[in-house]
């Protein structure tokens, strides 16, 4: 059973810049509602589909449904949606994000409008739903399931990448071609359901901004190698919002420029997250516990700072060949390069690009311990964690720990159990380091 709420759910932020994020999130849903009133097309959307640039270029206002579930959890207001979805027959082991989303739209249908007091005013009824096959199956099954509650044009497409043991030279051309065709299908769908026309030049403009945005964000993470840590993981989970949900906008780029300056100043001045940084931790995977983000501060109270993370961190910079002149092909090629980054290293050592990234972080960020979060309803980010940690131990000697709860559902989360586990782990990290 869930413990009674004893503290706030959000974490204390270190940097000033990320304090702007709360307003950005609020605006996401407010802007979508206003756009709808003005007749501007809105769409339910998923992260990691890598179609953000197309949406921005075609003036589609996205409503990020996974983000909304996380937001509901952070406000401890997810349960009513989860309970509704389960009452309608959806299994209690289905992705927590999905259950929140389905429950929200089920309640919307039941009450004839946005459910009362929905977090941040609720999600607008979209003009279309755009799913994809990237990362997990619920990304296209969720919107398909919503057909029972709302009659909204829905399009889904594949996002493909090969396995580590693939000869990339053999498959690259047809993988890129397929991805490009998938994006083209998306463009055709949007054109067919809106009055928007695709403009390649406009898309190039957006791509330039979004690439610059992601690059600046990556530069910030390079600064985070500093000791003591100038910016912790809990700030990352705010800082991710502009790149993930506002990519291709000048606002997002400006945000990271500001954050860069602040983090650089902190790094240069050796101002850490806490006065006495004893241990440096890596959040090694799994989605963050949106319902209990202050847990990162709890680690800090024990002298341990999460200095880097491997979740909601998709894209390091890649270099798309300059001969590519079609923006959709550019996006497809970029997607291929992003997914296959570190494959060379993986083939030589751990056979896993994820493990290679973790090993790289352990070295570069001087990591003393790795923590993952197994979320009971998210197979996409949970299955494989034990494997990663096993492989890490094949190539590095480092303490690891797996925390277990859910992304949004707190019904069987135990705060007391987590605290005891964390205290024991930090002791192990200390013993290992010393």
């Amino acid at each position, binding site marked *: 059973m869930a413990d009674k709420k004893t503290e706030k759910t959000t974490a204390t932020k270190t940097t000033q810049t990320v304090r702007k994020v709360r307003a950005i999130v609020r605006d996401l849903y407010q802007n979508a509602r206003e756009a709808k009133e003005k007749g501007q097309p809105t769409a339910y959307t998923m992260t990691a589909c890598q179609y953000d640039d197309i949406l921005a270029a075609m003036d589609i206002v996205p409503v990020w449904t996974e983000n909304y579930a996380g937001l509901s959890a952070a406000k401890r207001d997810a349960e009513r949606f989860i309970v509704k979805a389960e009452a309608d*027959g959806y299994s209690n082991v289905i992705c927590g994000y999905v259950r929140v989303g389905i429950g929200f739209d089920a309640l919307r249908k039941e009450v004839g409008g946005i459910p009362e007091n929905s977090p941040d005013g609720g999600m607008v009824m979209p003009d279309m739903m755009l799913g994809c096959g990237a990362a997990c199956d619920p990304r296209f099954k969720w919107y398909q399931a919503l057909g029972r509650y709302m009659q909204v044009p829905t399009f889904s497409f594949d996002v493909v990448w090969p396995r580590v043991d693939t000869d990339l030279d053999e498959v690259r051309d047809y993988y890129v071609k397929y991805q490009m065709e998938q994006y083209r299908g998306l463009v055709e769908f949007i054109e067919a359901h809106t009055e928007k026309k695709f403009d390649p030049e406009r898309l190039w403009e957006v791509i330039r901004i979004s690439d610059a945005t992601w690059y600046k964000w990556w530069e910030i993470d390079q600064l985070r190698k500093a000791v003591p840590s100038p910016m912790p993981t809990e700030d990352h989970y705010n800082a991710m919002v502009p790149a993930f949900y506002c990519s291709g906008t000048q606002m997002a780029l400006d945000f990271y420029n500001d954050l860069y300056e602040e983090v650089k100043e902190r790094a240069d001045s050796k101002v850490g997250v806490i006065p006495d940084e004893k241990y440096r931790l890596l959040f090694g995977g799994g989605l963050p516990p949106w319902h209990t983000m202050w847990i990162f501060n709890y680690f800090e109270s024990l002298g341990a700072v999460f200095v880097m993370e491997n979740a909601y961190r998709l894209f390091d910079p890649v270099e798309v060949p300059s001969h590519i002149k079609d923006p959709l092909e550019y996006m497809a090629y970029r997607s291929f390069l992003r997914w296959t980054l570190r494959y060379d290293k993986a083939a030589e050592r751990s056979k896993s690009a994820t493990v290679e990234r973790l090993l790289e972080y352990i070295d570069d960020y001087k990591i003393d311990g790795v923590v993952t979060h197994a979320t009971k309803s998210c197979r996409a980010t949970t299955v494989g964690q*034990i494997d990663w940690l096993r492989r890490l131990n094949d190539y590095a000697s480092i303490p690891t720990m797996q925390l277990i709860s859910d992304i949004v559902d707190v019904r069987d989360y135990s705060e007391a159990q987590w605290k005891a586990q964390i205290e024991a782990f930090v002791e192990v990290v200390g013993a290992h380091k010393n």
Partner: protein
Amino acid sequence: MTKTGLKTLGLAGVEELYQNKGQRAKELAQEGRKVIGYFCCYVPLELFTALDIVPYRIHGGTTEPITEADAYLETIMCPFIRSAFDLALKNRYDFLDGLVIPHTCDTVERLYDIWTYYREPVYSHFINVPHMLHASSFEFFKKELETYRKSLEDFAGKKVSDEALTEAVKLHNENRALVRELYSFGKPDPPLAFRSEILKTMIVGLGLPVEDFNDLLRSVIQEIKDRNEGPEKKAARVLIYGSVVDEVGFVQLVEESGANVVMDDLSTGSRAFWEDVEVTPDPLDGISNRYLDKIHCPRTYRPQGETPEQDLENRFGHIYRFVKDFNANAVVLYVIRFCDTYELDAPDFIDYMDSKDVPVLYLEDEYSATTLGQLKTRVQAFLEMFD
């Protein structure tokens, strides 16, 4: 293609093979045949056959506790996959020369990296199966199969000609026709065979070269035609819909609870065999089209229909056609827990069948024989409506 032979045919042969799963494949391996394990029904078996490779559909074990896999796989995932990998960790699949895994669902996809890292098969290949059915999806899938073909040829040390592949297509179509004939025994009232007999035949067939499987099917079909015994007439005529059922305990339970199970739509049953591969000048055209589009599994996204009713028809209409063709009057939706695609379909499926006046019993199970008692209570309560 090499002709092989089974020592015992008919239902006795089926029982012998069922009690000694993998025995035939091990014998063939000892004779020098290459044996490759695979998951799901999206791996084109024709390529194995054309290269004289024995395909072996990897199974789990509901009666065997998972004792090794916990150290590698999380508990919040498909228990069938955990069970199968547990058997691999216990060296039960050491007779396999290789592993082919298609991207069917999230869990199967992730298993590829884990299995290949810890078990280090001599040969392994991952086939990226699109979730979508756009025109470009078929083009991509054919390319993936071309890559797979080359990879398998390298492993086999020989090329497969289009002619040989076409012959394999025909042989597998013959196999599918035999399966459909076997399944037709479910149509009469009472049916001419127990579903547990039919499913057992399918389960063992998934571990045989197609020539052996065809011999076995012919013998079973003839035996059932010739015998005088069979199921008694019962009011409840059930179709079982779900993913993997690779042991017959659950099906027997339904039959013992007062129903005749007259049809299935299971990954280990009709779904893997129902549709033929069209014989095309380039055999990979027919193969890619059949395996991508003609297998109806919730992991494939059927494009949205123009109306909600049409959408449901696109997704579940084939099951209702089975219900009509086999004169079924109830459906058991048997889902292995943590299967997102089935679980997200379940409420829509139940509504769809409800609109056709077909009652559905929805069961989420743990893939463990220890749950059969609980399931029996649910099944019996469901079947009371037919008393």
